[in-house]
């Protein structure tokens, strides 16, 4: 096993989307960076998520960072010199009940007030735009920003780019202790010890656990999101589909496989490390999917899985300096953190390099949780 360097300008805990997208701009600015992962790099939420990059499905507080993120996703192929499976076919956010219609109208208005224009589709215009939608769909909003990428390709590309830029990415390096130095921190891991001036916790579901090593209490839980994928099929749906009630996400990849998600919960928890699919919720997920795109009935399901998604109690990202812990930062637990990752990483790196961010991320400041620093 390779050993980690004994010192670095920055240590990032977590080799998922948040950690790697923070590491890359830091390395580009000339900083030495070590990224530590408790398991395999890209092995949890970043590798197990649906790859959806939907803008209109995001809550208003994160629209601006998600929009920036989709721009960065779009530029990633050129930036990294490798395909990340990005495509921007646009997306439909569907409503199937009276209540959802009301919610969709409300959401559309809020988004318009924030500068995101979507288009209301119903009746023949909706059928013309998406003849594959089932009769249960009453209306949808169309957003040409909605995109998708391949988590598997993106992981490979980001890891390769990080290594090319001299970033050390260390697998099987669970952090067991963090000690404050005069300036910076000493991070003890299962794979060795490293001193750093700046420390970023980008540990997704385990962010609370790592922050606790610094005596900081962050209210982090994890959803156990299920996803399913079909066999490759002829072209069936040509847009990203999301659902006003938040119970479905659907898209077809260029290889013909259809990814079916929607935040249906599997069983287990990030504490127990168990993440199993839940039979009943899988049936619900498939039924919702077939009600909205009936042609899915004829496809074969080849695999379902469950992945952890770290989420703060208010479901907003944790991004900023840890209060009372100079040089320590957190970038984690954004709802839909995969889609926002490139922008949140960029903002994190800006904050670490210059003390400022180009986007307004004040609402994501971890100091909003009163408990932070309680053990100081």
């Amino acid at each position, binding site marked *: 096993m390779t050993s980690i360097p004994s010192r670095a300008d920055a240590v990032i805990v977590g080799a998922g989307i948040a950690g790697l997208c923070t590491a890359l701009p830091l390395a580009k600015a000339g900083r030495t960076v070590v990224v530590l992962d408790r398991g395999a790099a*890209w092995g949890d939420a970043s590798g197990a998520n649906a790859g959806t990059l939907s803008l209109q499905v995001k809550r208003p507080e994160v629209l601006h960072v998600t929009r920036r993120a989709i721009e960065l996703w779009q530029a990633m192929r050129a930036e990294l010199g490798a395909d990340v499976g990005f495509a921007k076919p646009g997306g439909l956010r569907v409503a199937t009940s009276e209540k959802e219609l009301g919610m969709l109208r409300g959401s559309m208005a809020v988004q318009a007030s924030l500068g995101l224009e979507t288009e209301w589709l119903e009746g023949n215009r909706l059928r013309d735009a998406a003849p594959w939608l089932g009769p249960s769909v009453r209306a949808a909003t169309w957003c040409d920003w909605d995109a998708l990428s391949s988590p*598997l390709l993106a992981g*490979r590309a980001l890891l390769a780019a990080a290594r090319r830029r001299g970033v050390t990415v260390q697998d099987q390096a669970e952090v067991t202790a963090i000690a404050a130095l005069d300036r910076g921190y000493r991070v003890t891991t299962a794979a060795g010890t490293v001193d750093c001036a700046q420390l970023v916790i980008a540990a997704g579901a385990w962010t609370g656990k790592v922050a606790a090593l610094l005596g900081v209490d962050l209210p982090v839980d994890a959803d156990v999101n299920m996803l399913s994928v079909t*066999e490759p099929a002829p072209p069936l749906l040509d847009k990203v589909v999301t659902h006003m009630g938040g119970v479905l996400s659907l898209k077809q990849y260029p290889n013909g496989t259809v990814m079916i998600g929607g935040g249906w919960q599997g*069983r287990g928890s990030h504490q127990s490390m168990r993440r199993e699919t839940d*039979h009943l919720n899988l049936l619900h997920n498939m*039924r919702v999917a077939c009600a909205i795109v009936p042609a899915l*009935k004829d496809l074969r399901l080849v*695999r379902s899985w469950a992945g952890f998604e770290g989420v703060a109690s208010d479901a907003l990202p944790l991004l900023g300096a840890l209060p009372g812990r100079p040089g320590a930062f957190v970038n984690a637990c954004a709802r839909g953190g995969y889609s926002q990752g490139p922008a949140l990483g960029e903002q994190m790196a800006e904050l670490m390099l210059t003390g400022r961010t180009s986007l307004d991320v004040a609402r994501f400041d971890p100091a909003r949780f009163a408990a932070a620093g309680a053990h100081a």
Partner: protein
Amino acid sequence: MMRVDLAVVGAGPAGLAAAAEAVTHGMTVALIDDNARPGGQYFRHVPPSFRRTAATAFDKDRARAEALFAITRHPQVTYLPEATVWDVPEPLTLAVAAGPRSGQVEAGAIVVAAGAHDRPVPFPGWTLPGVVSAGGVQNLIKGFRLVPGTRAAVAGNGPLLFLIGASLLRAGVAVAAVVEAAPIDRRLPAALPQLLAAPEILQQALDYRWALLRAGVPVLTGWAPVNAEGEDAVRAVQAAPIAEDGSVDRARARSFDCDLLVVGFGLVPSVELLRLAGAGLRFDRRRGGWLPERDEALETTRRNIFAAGDGTGIGGVELALIEGRRAAVEAAVQLSRIAPFAADEIRAGLRRRWKRLDRFRRGIEALFAPPKDFLALQTPQTVLCRCEEVTRQEIEERRAEGFRGAVQLKSTTRMGMGRCQGRNCMATLAALVAADSGASESAVALPKARAPARPIPIGDLLHETIPPPDLPADPHLPRKRRT
């Protein structure tokens, strides 16, 4: 939801025997099988619409097969053909996909008799049309009276090769060569005492070998196929000596013209369902790889889940019939359907025969023990994963980028992520990772078992009556779940 005393997965020899035994103890049985007709691979037979014009190997077993098949019509048995068990939602509940009959089967006990499938071993040209698996050719002969060629070569590892060579001759096909990787002729004297434990099966094997000899078919032992040649279809196969360490002497290669290359490198127990049920597995390379751990009563590490037949390690039809019965007896004991003394009597009889056949099996395993691995057969262009068309070279490129373990190589190449979900290529990937890390294949961490155990039509999931979903009030907030 159907409730039965015993759910039997697989209607091959072990499953049929288990069902037959169970009904004699008054148990209700659900017999669930992928195939349209009972019998599994061994008792595969032509559809009733076929007219028989000539006797075949199956006829010898016809009476025995018909007697076994009768259990599918027994009033205590619910026979579900063309049904796929795809999930184990509760410890003793199976989710079944079977068109409009789809739903759950809750059982007091389960016998998994899922059988085995061909072990694919990649070598140059193995994906050419005309290269067919041993199991596939047997299915065509048994189920359709069909041989997809006129001049065949048979290559690989294991006792099936001689059976297939002889069946091909009987079907009127010229056999160019039989190529067996294990140096069985050299090993035969040492294995003979064990093989004599079942002289009747040994006699069969010798008959096959004799038939090949009589027909003048070259039989190469300690040799392996190193290249299947042809543009649109196989035209010839090259074979070369292979050593115990897996190294291949290509300089001594010989070529055999053929329009059919039957490839069989032994059988792999189908353990997907047992993995999904959380049953403990152990690794035994000679017996097919990953096998369920079982106790004397054939119970897995999951209470009241039994495993029987080739799905627990290749043993053949006679052993499977005994194990099926034994598993059903033990299930009857667990469910208090049989008096202990009566169970002991049956056990004793089965045990004697089981021991004898198990001794024979060990002889066969010693005789046909494969080389360390078959990785030397591959070239950089060799396709390792057929579903996603991943070559050896792609694996090497990912390794050069720093991806090492089976899970990482899988996710960065898509090897094992296609239709077969790794059933055909994971063993190859594990062997590659093992060779790379110096660890044994058994130490290679494989991707988790996940539902569905087999691909299933999504439409099959729409039939069951289920409680209404618990929808989130605000989808952005953390969701409710069962832990």
